């Protein structure tokens, strides 16, 4: 087994913050170093792919044998509006309720509120 830990520098604290923002996850100040080290260890390990001769290889995104397969455009029974609305944590019939989106984004008003 390789020793990837020494290559943990592959990922900076700024990277962790950037990726957390993109992921819509919060990583607290206490957690950043741990996340950086653990993800850095994995990224260090995958560096070995750089040693392969990949010249001319076609990227393989899928192993399946079906390509761009479409169903006929025929109406069929789907899930009812009520079924879907029943799953939503907060509704204001006939809508799914979310906090205010426009007018200041996150700093914006309480809008629909989370309460």
């Amino acid at each position: 087994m390789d020793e990837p830990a020494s290559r943990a520098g592959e990922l900076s604290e700024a990277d962790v913050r950037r990726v957390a923002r993109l992921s819509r996850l919060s990583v607290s100040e206490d957690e950043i170093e741990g996340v950086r080290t653990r993800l850095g260890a994995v990224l260090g390990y995958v560096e070995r792919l750089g040693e392969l001769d990949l010249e001319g290889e076609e990227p393989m995104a899928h192993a399946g044998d079906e390509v761009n397969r479409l169903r006929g455009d025929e109406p069929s029974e789907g899930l009812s509006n009520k079924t879907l609305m029943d799953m939503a944590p907060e509704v204001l019939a006939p809508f799914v309720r979310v906090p205010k989106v426009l007018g200041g984004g996150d700093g914006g008003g309480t809008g629909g509120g989370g309460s």
Partner: protein
Amino acid sequence: MSAASIAQAVRRGKRSAETVVREAVARAKASGDLNAFTQVLEPEAMARAAAIDAAVGRGEDAGALAGVPIAVKDNLCTSQGRTTCASRFLEGYRSPFTATCVARLEAAGAVVIGKTNLDEFAMGSSGEHSAFGATRNPWDPRRAPGGSSSGSAAAVGAGIVPLALGSDTGGSIRQPASHCGVVGMKPTYGVVSRYGLVAFASSLDQVGPMATRVEDVAMALEVMRGEDPLDATSSRHDTGDLVSGVGSAIEGARIGVPRDVLDDAELHDGVRDVYERAIESCRSMGAEVVDIELPNARSGIAAYYIVAPAEASSNLARFDGVRYGRRAELDEGEGLEALYVKSRTEGFGAEVRRRILLGTHVLSSGYYDAYYTKALKARRLIKGDYDRAFGERGCDAVLAPVAEGPAFELGSKSEDPLALYLEDVFTVGVNLAGLPGITLPAGTAREDGVELPVGVQLIGGAFGDARLLRLASMLEAALGWGGRVAG
């Protein structure tokens, strides 16, 4: 008792489905120490069993799996009970539909008695990353059952049910099957519909059966497989008769042994012994054993830990706290963005968050080609290794170990995620290449005075599931494990 013999007895009216199911429910309820189930669906199961007995009484065909109690991994949607993925995010989630594979088993008479524990969203190899606590190995409760289909493997390995469903993205059926002494199969990609399987990595995920015998695995797969209009990746390929070949010999089978990978591996002595004896069993059943090479196998784990988190980060973006699942409480002044971040941060466990972060990183601007595209090219090489083994080398199957060691102690690897990731080295290539793989219990290894089951894995060519099952049944007979369960 095997699924096949239960179904036969129920169909002939020699045993009632109600009795069989009641006994299985009682075993499940008494197995709390294992933590194999997220929920036991007793009233639903008893009602279904009564309906099957009534059908038998009317002289109707009650199905190929009539009255067989089954357990279903809790990342498969069922309209009865909850579908939690062992996540706080979906703790109270009730699916409005049932996964195609489960619906097909039910239509064939199988009775779902409960949903089984797993590593959250199927991300893990130990069963420890569950929001509802780790599952324990029925052979030694201090040890992990493997994962991520931890509860299904433990439930079959403990003799609670003869048949269970798992899902396998990088070994999540085959590795826990090996650690719990049961048979587990990941079919060729596309053979089983993924409709109703909560997506982890869509190009790798495949549902498969776990049982005490190859015959039961074949019966379940025969019922589940086939095209599904609700899954555009379900294959139209004809996989033939899966059941009738089981138990009959293949003359002149050729089994490949990947010597280069084995020489490189740090196999536990007991695992190596079991594996070498399995090679002898292949010879004793008349197969020709040839050395082959899988030179890119080691790169498989690297490719896998880019491709799987990348797809996971995309698939798990749907958990937003708006449409279903957990919704965080917001403070005054917080908006939609905070709703996403808080719901996701509270709802997902540490391992799931790590994989989302990793996947987001490798897909992000500036890193995409360096990581993701490179991994997809490496994936092509890994498939090429297997194409050569089944093509020019003429192998019917490749025989490989499943994991480097037997079941490990709970907590022993959780502090080092890379060690857990490396646990997948013998299994991930099969998912990357989309091939069928089946794990069989092959013997035991002694660890701290305890005999622990050890499996071996047969890997077949794409859509050669029927031939693979037939070979597996030959090897099963030669190994002589005989459907043994723990305790």
